[in-house]
């Protein structure tokens, strides 16, 4: 009745540049495990998402059990366990943004991209079929004075209206 273990395909390795960054990183901490979050960020930046291969690689690199990596990856919403679009659009929907009509922005984005909002366990739901965008809701992005805000990958866009959203998407 026991399940079969899956074999991990396409092994992941850091690029030389990332390896250098990792080597610098690991020296910041007295224990290797502490470098978990920065290392996962680095790996996710390279691979796009944290696949089993990435998890196994990071576990070996930091000398921690595989389950600890899985543990951390599932705890933090910024780590993706499945492929996401080229642009990840994070829409803040906490109270200050809600008071400034983030719902309108979200509805506009949904209509424009023609996709649903991703849930944490099913990112595919929020990804456009062409794999260009992933739309997700996030909690407060700490920019309540310029609400409503969205983040597209690493960039923050402020004081949004549906028109501004169009402009941003067109410029991507």
């Amino acid at each position, binding site marked *: *009745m*026991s*399940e*079969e*273990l*899956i074999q*991990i395909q396409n092994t992941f390795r850091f690029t030389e540049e990332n390896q250098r960054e990792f080597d610098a990183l690991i020296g910041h901490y007295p224990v290797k495990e502490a470098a978990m979050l920065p290392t996962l960020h680095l790996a996710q930046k390279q691979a796009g998402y944290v*696949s*089993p291969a990435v*998890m*196994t690689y990071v576990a070996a690199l930091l000398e921690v*059990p*595989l*389950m*600890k*990596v*899985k*543990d951390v990856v*599932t*705890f933090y*919403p910024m780590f993706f*366990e*499945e492929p996401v679009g080229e642009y990840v659009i994070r829409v803040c929907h906490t109270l200050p943004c809600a008071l400034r009509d983030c719902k309108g922005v979200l509805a506009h984005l949904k209509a424009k991209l023609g996709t649903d909002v991703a849930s*944490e*366990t099913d990112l595919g739901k929020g990804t456009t079929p062409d794999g260009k965008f992933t739309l997700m809701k996030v909690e407060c992005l700490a920019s309540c004075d310029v609400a409503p805000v969205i983040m597209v990958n690493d960039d923050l866009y402020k004081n949004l209206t549906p028109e501004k959203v169009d402009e941003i998407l067109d410029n991507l």
Partner: protein
Amino acid sequence: MAFIKLNDLEVEVEDGTNVVEAARLHGIEVPHYCYHPGLSRPANCRMCLVEPHVFFPPAGAIVPDRQLATGCTTVLRTAPPNRKLDGKYDFIVYTDSPRVKKAREDILEFLLVHHPLDCPVCDQAGECDLQDFTYRHGHDKSRYLEVKNVPPKKDLGPDVLLYSTRCIVCTRCIRFCQEVSGSNELGLIHRGSHDEIDIPRSHDGMPLQLLDNKLAGNVVDICPVGALISKDFLFKSRPWFMKQEKSVCAGCSVGCNITVEYKEDGVYRLKPRFHEEINQHWMCDDGRLGYGYVNSDDRLQLPMKRVDGEFQPTHWADALTQITEKLSEADAEKVVVIGSAQGTNEDNYVLQQFAHEVLKTEHLGLFGALPGEEHTFPQFTIEADKNPNTAGARKMLSNGTPVLEGEALWKKVSEADIVYLVSGAPERSLEAEEKAVLESVDFLIVQDVLPSEVTALADVVLPGTTFAEKDGTFTNSKGWVQRIRKTVDAPGEARIDWEIIQQLARQLGGEMNYHFAGEISLAISENVSGYAEATHQNIGDSGVKLAE
């Protein structure tokens, strides 16, 4: 010792004891889930909340702390003289105040919010902490109207299933895998109310690593609810239908303390029993799942003799008569008696007495299961010697003369006419040389529990008993003498080993008159050096350590 006020009791406890243990020692229950004495204390279930006094109260004042504290992490220590509460107490703590009772009710309500009402089909029902504590401390109805979380049932490994819906996320199993087995297969996934215990998997649920270590079965024991379930025991029996007996595992020379749970038709499961110096709270899966041969349909049930090269069942009188005839004619120099490291001290002592006093032979050997591999874990060791009583059997058999083992034994056997081999090692295989030597013996008497390569060579086979079917003592590798106790009846006409030997002795004119194993242990305590303290009365449930 710390002098504490526990509710309205004034009690003394050892420094460093926590409130849960201190209360337990004095017969007060502090319900808890995440706390396990053998593991670290995350205090995450919040069930053991108690009402303490502030640690550093203003001079002369006695004030209850504003916050309730978890009993598992509140450690009692002797306070310096100027810090005594009420002039004499080192600490004051209440486990039954209205606030504590309210908190317990509240926590239980939360614990039951997503817990399914599947007790009628749950294996744990009857020995479930959630059932028991809810019955004793909880609400009688639920106020929860929303949709329950229904995480999937999961297969974790060769012997463990996870019913995630029943899980209360106490993380005992995770901490076990981190601290005791050191194998780290288990962890939490997701966050908040979606927390689930799991093994590493890819996103689509395919396992990357299984809960597959030799201590994995313990997570089922320590699970306070029916979330982790042993596949071996799944749907086999309700706990309250089984009888329990304290015993010792016969799987290796560690001698883990166990509880044998059984019904009339056989042994159902073995569970570890706490012994501070031997196995703490744990046992290995080899031992836990190794009881299968006791219930086996293949068990030897009748004496058998070889007629024209074929085995034929016979009755005891016939088998014993045939043996006594052979033995009474034999030259004592050509008789070898071989005891077993699987047998109890009592079996081997009687065998030794039989050899010396009745057969007058000096040739006593020791036989047993083949050695296995040693496995070491951070807090547990599985020893390579797969016999529970090597040390004891050697001592019992060597009363006066050295015991033959290994090469010396096989050499002696090759010269013998008659060999009486008490084995008891289930499914013992033989090396080619061993086989050749045994084949050369004129008359081979084998007393065993299961057909094996050894019994296949015998002229007469006598059905013996396993550890689950007799009383006696085992001596482990560290010199602990511990009791095993009879649980189920021996199958068919199989008899207790020392009774068979005694019967043979009597038929050969020997004077042996033991009625029960305890009597033999008294003889052992008188006649075997170092065993003076090791009577059944003294051994009790926790064993006796022999002097070095």
